């Protein structure tokens, strides 16, 4: 099978799923916001969306292991800096081509349009040739890139492309070489061929050279070379065209004969590859913070799932500029274990931990590497979340009812292959109620046999049975005022803390000794 798409092993997957995208309406889905996936996606696509419309791909999780691995392989290849650089240079040239084509549509004067058309074709030829020349030097492993390479190889050898390129070069060169003179006197403009007249600017510069030694202001007026032409320039070019008739008729023919030069599959590749590039750029940035990413193994059995050194990608992305340290956490569920009950001090990273679990699974289903040094994840069908919302308008009773309705809806739709994430539900109920309700819900979840993360202050849930695992946010052993943001497997104890730190002037002899540097 020939090359079709760098995103889909079988392009039909995409077409079949197009309807599903609309039906699920993930963009509006609650879990997307709860897991801060919207923040991650919007932040990485914001500069690219308008040009490439890659957003829909992010709302289409794959539900087939082979499809996921197809993308993982492509991504691994793209992590090779040589390939990455090659592809980004390629997409930059394609971008420039689109800008030029856009100009051609907008401009009025014939030779002006034709001039920019030449630039667009040049960008395209450069882009294609660059890829075909350099991609053969790169060791590729993914089926996606291998078949793309084959396709490009054949395309470059096609008669159409060869002739396009050689005619382009000839016309470009002839246009660049021609030189003419304009003589302006009052309102008269004369155009003639250049006849080696002396450069007068140079003469003046030479005379005054000795007074221009130091760095002074540049008085040169910076003229942006216009892309468009005005009527005077058009008049001048018309005169130039009369002075050099052969060159300009060649240009005219080239323009008329090659209007649809752009190949469909190359065009599609240019767009789809952005899906990988934007995520890879994010990863590179986050790795600078000392955090790791890995390609997760995807499993459709519930034997075990784990992620070592995971973290909340949205949080890391935000913290990048604040220089704050991101704490990593691990999770492991094996054999019968299904449910992680997270408890411990507030502001200790519990919600972040729960979010991370969901994020990692979703990102994996897009075919991306995920936060962590080693991971094995579950091929889920759907993710459901229920995070506490601060809605003060509703009465307590109204809120509880609302909570229960939403949970009922989730448990109704969830299958044994779903993932459910619950964060601090029933907080506004009496403790007795909360314990009672929570236990009831927990029983239902156990019955469903699905993977679940539940952040709660109700420590009683933590030791419910063999399916539940207790994890706790922790504090520094030396100073209980300092939170570590580490969530570890531990029995729940339910203690809360508060902190205060005092500061002093560092002016003792020992301090000053250290503060004043020796020369």
């Amino acid at each position, binding site marked *: 099978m020939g090359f079709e798409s760098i995103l889909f092993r079988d392009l039909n997957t995409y077409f079949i799923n197009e309807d599903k995208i609309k039906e699920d309406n993930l963009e509006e889905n609650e879990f997307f916001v709860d897991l801060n996936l919207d923040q991650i996606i919007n932040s990485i696509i914001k500069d690219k969306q308008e040009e490439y419309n890659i957003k829909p791909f992010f709302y289409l999780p794959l539900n087939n292991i082979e499809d996921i691995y197809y993308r993982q392989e492509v991504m691994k290849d793209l992590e090779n800096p040589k390939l990455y650089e090659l592809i980004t240079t390629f997409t930059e040239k394609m971008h420039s081509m689109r800008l030029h084509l856009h100009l051609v549509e907008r*401009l009025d004067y014939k*030779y*002006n349009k034709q001039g*920019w058309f030449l*630039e667009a074709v040049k960008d395209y030829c450069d882009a294609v040739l660059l890829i075909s020349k350099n991609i053969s030097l790169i060791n590729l492993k993914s089926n996606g890139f291998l078949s793309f390479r084959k396709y490009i190889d054949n395309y470059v050898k096609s008669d159409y492309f060869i002739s396009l390129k050689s005619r382009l070069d000839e016309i470009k060169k002839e*246009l*660049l070489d*021609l*030189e*003419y*003179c304009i*003589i*302006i*006197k009052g*309102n*008269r*403009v*004369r155009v*003639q*061929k*250049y006849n080696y*007249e002396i*450069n*007068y*600017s140079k003469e*003046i*510069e030479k*005379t*005054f*050279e*000795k*007074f*221009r030694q*130091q760095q*002074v*202001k*540049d*008085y*040169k*007026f910076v*003229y942006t*070379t216009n*892309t*468009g*032409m005005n*009527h*005077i*320039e058009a008049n*001048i*070019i018309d*005169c130039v065209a009369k*002075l050099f008739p052969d060159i300009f008729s060649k240009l005219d023919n080239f323009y008329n004969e090659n209007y649809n030069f752009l190949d469909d599959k190359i065009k599609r590749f240019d767009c789809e590859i952005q899906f990988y590039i934007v995520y890879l750029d994010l990863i590179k940035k986050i790795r600078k913070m000392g955090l790791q990413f890995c390609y997760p193994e995807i499993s459709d059995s519930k034997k075990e799932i784990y992620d070592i050194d995971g973290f909340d990608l949205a949080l890391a992305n935000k913290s990048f500029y604040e220089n704050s340290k991101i704490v990593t956490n691990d999770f492991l569920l094996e054999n019968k274990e299904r449910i992680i009950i997270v408890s411990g001090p507030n502001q200790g990273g519990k919600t972040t931990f729960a979010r991370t679990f969901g994020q990692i699974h979703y990102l994996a289903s897009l075919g991306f590497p995920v936060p962590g040094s080693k991971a094995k994840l579950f091929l889920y069908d759907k993710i459901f979340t229920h995070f506490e919302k601060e809605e003060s308008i509703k009465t307590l009773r109204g809120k509880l009812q609302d909570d229960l309705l939403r949970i009922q809806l989730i448990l109704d739709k969830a299958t044994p292959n779903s993932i459910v994430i619950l964060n601090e539900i029933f907080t506004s109920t009496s403790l007795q109620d909360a314990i009672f309700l929570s236990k009831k819900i927990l029983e239902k979840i156990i019955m469903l046999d699905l993977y679940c993360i539940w952040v709660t202050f109700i420590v009683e849930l933590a030791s419910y049975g063999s399916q539940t695992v207790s994890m706790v946010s922790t504090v520094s052993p030396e100073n209980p005022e300092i939170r570590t943001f580490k969530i570890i497997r531990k029995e729940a104890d339910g203690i809360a803390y508060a902190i205060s730190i005092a500061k002093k002037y*560092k*002016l003792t*002899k020992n301090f*000053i*000794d250290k*503060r*004043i540097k020796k*020369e």
Partner: protein
Amino acid sequence: MKVFLMFKNKNLDLESPLPSNSKDLIKDLELKTIFSAMALGNKEIYEITNKVVLNSLFDVETIKYRQEILKDCIKNPSVIKNIYDITVQTIEIKRTHHLGGVFSNYPSGILYSALQLMYLFVEMLKKIRDIIEQNEKNFESEGFKNLFKILKVEFSNEYFTVVRHHLKELEFKNGVLISAKLTDGNVPNNFILRKHPEKKENIVKRVFKKRAPSYTFYIDPRDESGSRVLSEIENKGVNLAANALAQSSEHIYSFFTNLRQELSFYIGCLNLYQNIINLGLHISFPEPVGSANSILSFQSLYDLSLALTVKSNIVSNDIFADGKDLLIITGANQGGKSTFLRSIGIAQILMQSGMFVPAVFFKSNICNGIFTHYRRREDIAMKSGKLDEELSRMSDIVDNIKPYSMILFNESFSSTNEREGSEIAKQIISALIEKKIKVLFVTHMYELAGWFYKKEIRNAMFLVAERLNDGRRTFKVIEGEPLQTSYGKDLYNKIFLQLR
């Protein structure tokens, strides 16, 4: 073409920020009095002397370089004032006639303005050149000798002829001839101003020579946008030529500006000199030595700020404190301690700007920075306690101070009780002198002074405000053992002993 009257190889940089401790220095050493005496109401001179004095020099060579120039100025005050006046006048004319100052945005306008400026500058430079030719034999300093040489070489009479020639050429009587190429999109660009071929061939030859093919079009006189485009093409053509001329004129202008700025400092010094002589006081050029030595010796050093304020002769001091890193000055209030401390700070900072000092003799090592930590009695915000405020200022100093600096403490850390204050001061002083920082500490805390005195460290010196046997004060500071604050003891004696 550089002025180089402040530094051997660079211009005075007025953009460089003042050291972080400048505000305190100005206040604690009362430098405003000195700057005002230098500026005599001229705002620019005030600002420049302020910058120069506070941005200390750290090398003996540059200090001596300025000292030599200043000596020439003191010998030839009217010559220096004449040259300075011409620079002021030139800049004034440029400003009032808006010459070049409002360079038009377009190359043709820039070209015109630059040529006008060139005329002015050449005329003024000629005047300066004439003054120099008459007086140069009276100058000995390296700085002035080099400057005069440059002016004579760069501004010859031929230069003026060249400027005039170009002005005429650039009127473009035969139209502007510009060559061009095509750039991306077939837009005309790469406009280069060309010289019309010289018409040396005879008329017959010209008539029969086949004219190159050309196409002509005219712009409707009412086509405003068309003529705008046309003049833009013209402008693109003269762009480089205009830039060359404008840059040259700016360069000469900046020479004038630099000359005026650097002379401002010396004019300020001359003003101060005259003021001091009128008061019947003395000055001398100090002897700076490298920072690695602990040198501080002076004879008849007086507090210049105080002298300028009281406008009369005042007490002066002699000290030989070579090899000392710590000077602790004790004694009762009103004994001349603060004046003594300030006179040293002022002399040190004036020396490190290349100026003369208010002493018969002054020798000191160069300090990597001059810091003051004075007890502030009034301006303390309510929210932070006095000691807090003192410590936080001290902490800022520690952030900025380097080894081989000088720091003047005046009654510091006395906002708490003596035991605590002394303990803090001991720690700070010990740490500072270990880093080879010269510490001058005026204090009435005997706990502090006595502790250092008993340690018998070689590099410490103890000074007291002189008191005659009859108890009268001379306001002189002399070497001597720190004394318990006599106020309290006196009072105690007076009350308790008398009672007994």
